[in-house]
């Protein structure tokens, strides 16, 4: 009888909690307003704009060479691919013939960028679900890539290596050897990743069946990249709209059908292998030639609208330029992958627990400057 009165006195009630903007699991200044009932999530409302710099407005005032530099600061883990997206849009608009050498180098560095980004993701993914050591393993391998970038591009993170018309300068003489060394090294390390985390029973219990996103919802929410491919939605821009040297390499699109956190995890691990394979196919066959074609010092795009999509480490990045024929874009829109992926978060997380939300957030792999732009 006593327990019965106790139960009647304590009714479940919904209440708010704040996650972020300074929370380790949000990986940046993202604030989530959670409505919860006990530990069950009823609603997730992201609060954005803490680091919004209005890059799109800045682009309307800048020249096309300057815009490339701003894109580093969106998804800083895919900075090379972001640069490439703007350069490709400008080059297509000008109908420039880009040297084969440039295309191949761009693709190699793009795939290295993807590996570096996935290494970082893998490290913090483990950390988010309570395995601290993965962080050090992931960063150890990412460091090798950053060193290669530093030698060739002069920077480790915001590389600015692409310019409209080609590359800032030619690759460093050590580049090919170091990349080959890295590929050989990393091939022995991915199985280590699997040993450490993938097969771990605690990790699997935390991720399997958690945060399920169906294929139909993924398409409706405009989700792209590894998140969408974890739901069985084949959407790799490198396959459907190949750019640079991606039309001459063979690789498999990583796909899983479960749609849960573990599926998204597996997709990214599989992508590490595919990226290595793409690099291996290209590294021995870098064509000789110029690293850049001359463009006018002041680039004026013809009147019209230009759209280019690329596959960053996070998904589909779109660059949409409306030009009126002047040296600045009339309007420039970045369709960032993180923004659309985040929009599905409420749908994925509702009904789960707060701990599940952390695991889900980890596999959405959000980079906040990419969302805030």
């Amino acid at each position, binding site marked *: 009888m006593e327990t019965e009165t106790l139960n009647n006195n304590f009714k479940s009630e919904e209440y708010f909690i704040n996650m972020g903007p300074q929370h380790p699991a949000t990986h940046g200044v993202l604030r989530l307003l959670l409505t919860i009932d006990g530990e069950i999530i009823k609603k997730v409302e992201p609060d954005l704009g803490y680091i*919004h710099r209005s890059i799109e407005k800045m682009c309307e005032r800048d020249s096309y060479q300057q815009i490339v530099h701003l894109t580093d600061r969106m998804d800083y883990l895919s900075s090379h691919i972001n640069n490439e997206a703007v350069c490709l849009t400008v080059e297509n608009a000008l109908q420039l013939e880009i040297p084969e050498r440039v295309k191949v180098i761009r693709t190699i560095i793009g795939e290295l960028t993807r590996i570096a980004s996935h290494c970082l993701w893998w490290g913090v993914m483990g950390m988010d679900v309570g395995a601290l050591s993965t962080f050090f393993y992931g960063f150890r391998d990412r460091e090798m890539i950053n060193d290669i970038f530093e030698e060739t591009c002069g920077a480790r993170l915001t590389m600015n290596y692409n310019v409209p018309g080609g590359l800032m300068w030619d690759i460093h003489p050590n580049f090919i050897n170091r990349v080959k060394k890295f590929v050989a090294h990393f091939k022995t390390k991915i199985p280590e990743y699997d040993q450490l985390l993938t097969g771990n029973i605690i990790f699997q219990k935390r991720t399997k069946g958690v945060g399920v996103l169906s294929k139909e919802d993924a398409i409706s929410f405009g989700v792209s990249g590894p998140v969408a491919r974890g739901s069985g939605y084949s959407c790799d821009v490198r396959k459907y709209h190949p750019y640079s040297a991606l039309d001459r390499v063979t690789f498999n699109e990583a796909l899983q059908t479960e749609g849960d956190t573990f599926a998204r995890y597996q997709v990214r691990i599989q992508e590490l292998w595919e990226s290595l394979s793409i690099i291996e196919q290209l590294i021995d066959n870098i064509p000789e030639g110029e690293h850049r074609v001359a463009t006018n010092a002041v680039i004026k795009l*013809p009147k*019209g609208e230009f759209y280019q999509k690329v596959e960053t480490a996070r998904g589909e990045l779109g660059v949409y330029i409306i030009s009126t024929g002047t040296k600045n874009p009339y*309007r420039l829109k970045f369709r960032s992958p993180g923004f659309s992926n985040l929009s599905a978060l409420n749908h994925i997380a509702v009904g789960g627990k707060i701990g599940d939300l952390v695991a889900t957030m980890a596999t959405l792999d959000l980079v906040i400057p990419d969302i805030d732009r």
Partner: protein
Amino acid sequence: MTNEALQELIGSWFPNPEADMAKDVSKTTVEEEGDGETDPSKVEEPVPSSLLQFSEEGSQFLNIVVNPEHFHDLMLKLKTNEATSFDYLFCLTGVDWGEALGVVYHLESTKYRHSVVVKVNTADRENPMLNSVCDIWRTAEFHEREVFDFFGIKFKNHPNLKRLFLTEEWDGYPLRKDYEDEINMVIK
């Protein structure tokens, strides 16, 4: 589907009543041929046969310009029609065209991999209003909030239309061309 076939199909959904009046009553079944060839009788037609305007000039996509009243019907048909099935809204852009504000929708079909661009302009700048497409593509919910935040376009039937990036008390809409902010903007 090729752009020509798409144009013919989508154009036939919204026939122009004026074109019907202008045309003679002897209307042959031109639409059913569908071979993509330019029909000489159509070229001479001065009144457009559809309420939609099509253009491929200066763009790699087929562009469709639609007026706000037919906009939602068109979008719903583009998604639900079996032959088009544009299920992936991959980009939603607000644009300040000067006298009018507009929204540009980039659509792709994951089944057929064809793309189309839909453009719609608001009637005025003072009270810009468009129908929301949240009920068709759920990704529009965030993107429309972004457009509302930066351009001030209100979307009818949006479930949660409020500022996304900026604070509620922010004055003005920063991505409009006439926006001025002496402190935060460096104008060259």
